[in-house]
């Protein structure tokens, strides 16, 4: 008897792209990804937006990280008016009052990887921005101490970039003459 439980896959297909309607958050288009709100401010808007949002109750900045979209440039679904660039810096905000999270996604071009620092608004981003600088080479204007944080100070390159190769240790198997 065939086991009914293993017949059909329940993996949901990717949600249809949400209506890119007129919803704007202080001028930044807002989309929904897997039920989570994502705003897409421009580089110049970012600090002002975060400062305005802090006044509205988004008082905690929990994370600043980045994604290198070298391998899927261009074909990412982004709201109208937002040009996909190689780097995306992701800022996670939390409102204790609304019990909600908000993600800000900023496009950062490859030839000019600079972003204004959020340190003046949320000093807790200091270490996170240092890590983004260390791992992706994105510089933050106005950061008090933009140095490498995880890698050694004399390290060359930015490891989480997609064009930074994964380390490899040659392994010799006695049984096989040729390396695979």
């Amino acid at each position, binding site marked *: 008897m065939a086991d009914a439980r293993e017949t059909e896959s329940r993996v949901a297909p*990717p*949600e249809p792209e949400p209506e890119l309607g007129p919803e704007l958050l202080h001028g930044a288009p807002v989309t929904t990804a897997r039920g989570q709100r994502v705003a897409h401010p421009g580089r110049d808007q970012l600090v002002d937006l975060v400062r305005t949002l802090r006044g509205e109750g988004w008082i905690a900045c929990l*994370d600043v990280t980045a994604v290198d979209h070298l391998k899927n440039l261009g074909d990412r679904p982004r709201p109208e008016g937002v040009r996909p660039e190689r780097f995306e810096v992701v800022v996670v905000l939390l409102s204790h009052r609304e019990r909600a999270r908000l993600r800000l996604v900023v496009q950062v071009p490859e030839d000019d990887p600079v972003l204004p620092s959020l340190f003046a608004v949320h000093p807790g981003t200091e270490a996170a921005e240092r890590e983004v600088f260390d791992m992706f080479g994105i510089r933050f204007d106005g950061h008090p101490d933009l140095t490498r944080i995880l890698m050694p100070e004399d390290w060359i390159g930015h490891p989480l970039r997609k064009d930074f190769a994964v380390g490899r240790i040659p392994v010799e198997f006695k049984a096989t003459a040729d390396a695979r």
Partner: protein
Amino acid sequence: MSTLESRSRLTDEGAQEMTDRPVEGGVEVLRELGAVLRMSEADAQAAAGSETTDGETTIINMGPQHPSTHGVLRLMLELDGETVLRTKPVIGYLHTGMEKTGEQLTYLQGPTNATRMDYASPLFTELVFSMATEALLGVEVPPRAVWIRMLMTEINRISSHLLFLATNGMDLGAVSMMLYGWREREETLRFLEKVTGLRMNHNYIRPGGVAADLPDGWRDDVLRLMDMLPPRLEEYDILMTGQPIWRERLQGVGVITTEEAIALGATGPILRSTGYAWDLRRDMPYLAYDQVDFDVVVGTYGDCFDRYAIRLNEVRESIRIILQILDRMPPGDYRLQDKKVTPPPRARIDESMEALIHHFKIFTEGFKVPEGDVYVAIESPRGELGCYLVSDGSSKPYRMRIRGPSFFNLQCLPHMMRGGLIADAVAVISSVDPIMGEVDR
């Protein structure tokens, strides 16, 4: 405050004035106090060689091989006599590129990697990675898997807090507490070993559910554990909580305010010690935490003693949660029965060609995850543990980011230490309870 102000004139920041500030001005406080030492290695080395005269400050180095720095944390401390002025935490000694490694492993292999980040509470990193993967897949795990996850993570929370109590005691010279803490932690690890096969780095919680059902007799084992712990916690209270030396050593040391903690991104016991009741289990419930009854433990003064007492009492709350889980553990599948995500039951492989193929496919190339990105967060023993996953539609994460709470909590150190004695630095580090595996990843 007056001594602090007079001392701050001795630093190279010049005289500083306090100004009126709005309620949410924790940010301004941080900037004015300037507790963070921002100095390069070269400058520090140059300063180390020079003779100091009266009125000058000394820069000393603590760690990374210091027994009280919880692994490989290193601090650069600027001292005036025995008073700490500015501090710079230096991290990265345990960096092994786990986020990069995560991009090379399939989603099924992911927990093997993630579990090695926070080695004191490995099940939480597995859980957050699995929950993020499930959110990308859009699948719901069966109720039994949800409750098993709750049971296991709460037991892991107990073991992590016991480890804190042990090391906190050791750092402050209460060596008997260290032995008791390790002893009780070993009992909880024994249960985790019985269920998962390993004392740590379990790789037990996986996308789609958990790796195996609870073994026979698990209920008795948990009950025995829950019977054993409360009287031991009472012993800790007698040994530590009410003891004058212990209180003298911790009360009023390493104080931080709510505004500062939020501005610095601190979460977990550090934020709660300032009197701010924020616990993701209660405020933004995940798993089935909205169906169990427990209290969020908060402190008042934001000092080292509050952080100690919060963790001790959180063990009691975890015991409360676990006893409710024992009553309500539902029957059913311990993992999703979905041929595309979880391997088929072992027995099916013998009789079904299709099941064998699926088994092979899942373990060789993994399952494909729809494109998209998601941020999922849970309350680990140290605070908000977040996972930001980006999928490009393949069977490996395009980007895996783990937001380790210790990474952000460490930023509180300079502000907690400022104006305190160098001897209290050890108490402050210990009370933050950093796990360097999670800080450096």
